[in-house]
């Protein structure tokens, strides 16, 4: 309800705002964007409040549109808007069109690791929550090796047994391609590059999906693709892997570089994400 009160701002009597005109409501991820047109008569509104029905959930802003957050995905809502200034509130507008709030994106950052200029040859993400359906590891990798092949590999839960296997297809350009296979390995080879990654400022990129990682009844499958290109030297690969443990959820991931004794890479970046199902 409008208060009907008036107040003075800088010596002028301030009327309560007049009712704004409702516009279009648009569904967002557990939210809605509510458009309106400010009234041209009455006192100026210093802010606007959008009110949901059902739920009486509000969002506030100083201009159109106003975002209302905290809605329940799958629930239908309409919205009304009112203006406010120090004197009081306008009446609420008429109701908007009905929207159904969308499911929020289920892709969340869990942890990030940036390597220093030198250090050990393993990187571990530990205490991984079991609240996601799948995991995705995005890796940006460069080594200081100047001879030999580079590998990037994975272990889970600290298991160093011969419980891993993988298949890989790779292309090296100019009609050169090949395959690799590992059985009863002590890690999953994401990429066994036929040359080293040591090219100034060029980083290999990988996207590694770890499927159904929290299952206690399935072995754990990975899929990955990525590589590097240094304007005349490079390789692209895609890979599938398996950890033959069906009874334990993955709670830690160790990234290892089996061909390195140490690395002296610069500024590698590993980011672990969870995907909700």
């Amino acid at each position, binding site marked *: 309800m409008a208060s009907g009160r008036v107040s003075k701002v800088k010596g002028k009597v301030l009327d309560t705002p007049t009712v704004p005109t409702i516009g279009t409501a648009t569904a967002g*991820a557990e939210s809605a964007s509510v458009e309106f047109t400010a009234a041209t008569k009455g006192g100026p509104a210093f802010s606007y409040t959008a009110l949901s029905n059902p739920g009486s959930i509000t969002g506030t802003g100083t201009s159109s549109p106003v975002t209302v957050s905290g809605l329940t995905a799958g629930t239908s809502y309409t919205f009304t808007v009112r203006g406010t200034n120090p004197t009081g509130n306008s009446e609420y507008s008429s109701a908007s069109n009905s929207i159904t709030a969308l499911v*929020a*994106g*289920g*892709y*969340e*950052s*869990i*942890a*990030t690791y940036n390597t220093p200029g030198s250090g050990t040859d393993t990187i571990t993400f530990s205490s991984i*929550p079991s*609240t*996601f359906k799948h995991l995705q590891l*995005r890796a*940006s990798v460069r080594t200081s090796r100047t001879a030999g092949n580079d590998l990037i590999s994975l272990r889970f839960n600290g298991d160093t047994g011969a419980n891993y296997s993988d298949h890989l*297809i*790779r*292309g*090296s*350009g*100019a*009609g*050169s*391609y090949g395959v690799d296979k590992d059985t009863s390995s002590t890690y999953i080879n994401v990429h066994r590059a036929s040359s080293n990654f040591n090219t100034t*400022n*060029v*980083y*290999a*990129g*990988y*996207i590694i999906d770890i499927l159904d990682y929290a299952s206690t009844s399935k072995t754990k499958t990975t899929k990955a*693709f*990525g*590589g*590097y*290109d*240094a*304007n*005349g030297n*490079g*390789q*692209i*690969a*895609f890979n599938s892997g398996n950890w033959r443990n069906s009874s334990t959820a993955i709670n830690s991931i160790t990234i290892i570089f089996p061909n390195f004794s140490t690395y002296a890479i610069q*500024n590698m*970046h590993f*980011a672990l*994400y*969870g995907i909700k199902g």
Partner: protein
Amino acid sequence: MAAGRTYEPIATTTLNTTTTSYTFNSIPNTYTDLVIIASCVAPSGGAARAIAVRINGDTSQSYSQTFLWNGDGTLNSSRNVNLTYVQAGYYAYFTGTQRSLSQINIFRANSNDEGIAKTMINRSSSVTGTDVFVGTWSGTTRVSSITLITQSGDFGSGTILTLYGIKAA
């Protein structure tokens, strides 16, 4: 602990006319990686062709790529140096109900990683083949715009291009 939702749509467009190129401008500096999903059709009567990527309007020979593809039941691999783009779908796109789908991933795109070249890993699928690419743009500034181009012809009306950002914790 998870740090909250982080795979966010930045911009999307559905082309309503044939278009030679499309640019995502004013990309926020807040994302670690960028992802583009391109669902492409060709203009009526158009032949198959390729979609490719340029960064920050750079049309110089600052790009290179290595790729692997199966277009006719045979595995192949090629490399290109000193390019003016990185490809994201060699087998291109089609008319009618057939589309090609490309996913473009650009790593470490924001100003935290200025000073390193930008790596792209791209993949595409269509009824005539599948491809995976790794490419590098040797520029080292943050990614503020991405231009999608065709190597011959146009994007057809109905092509859908969506840009996403991913924030690392």
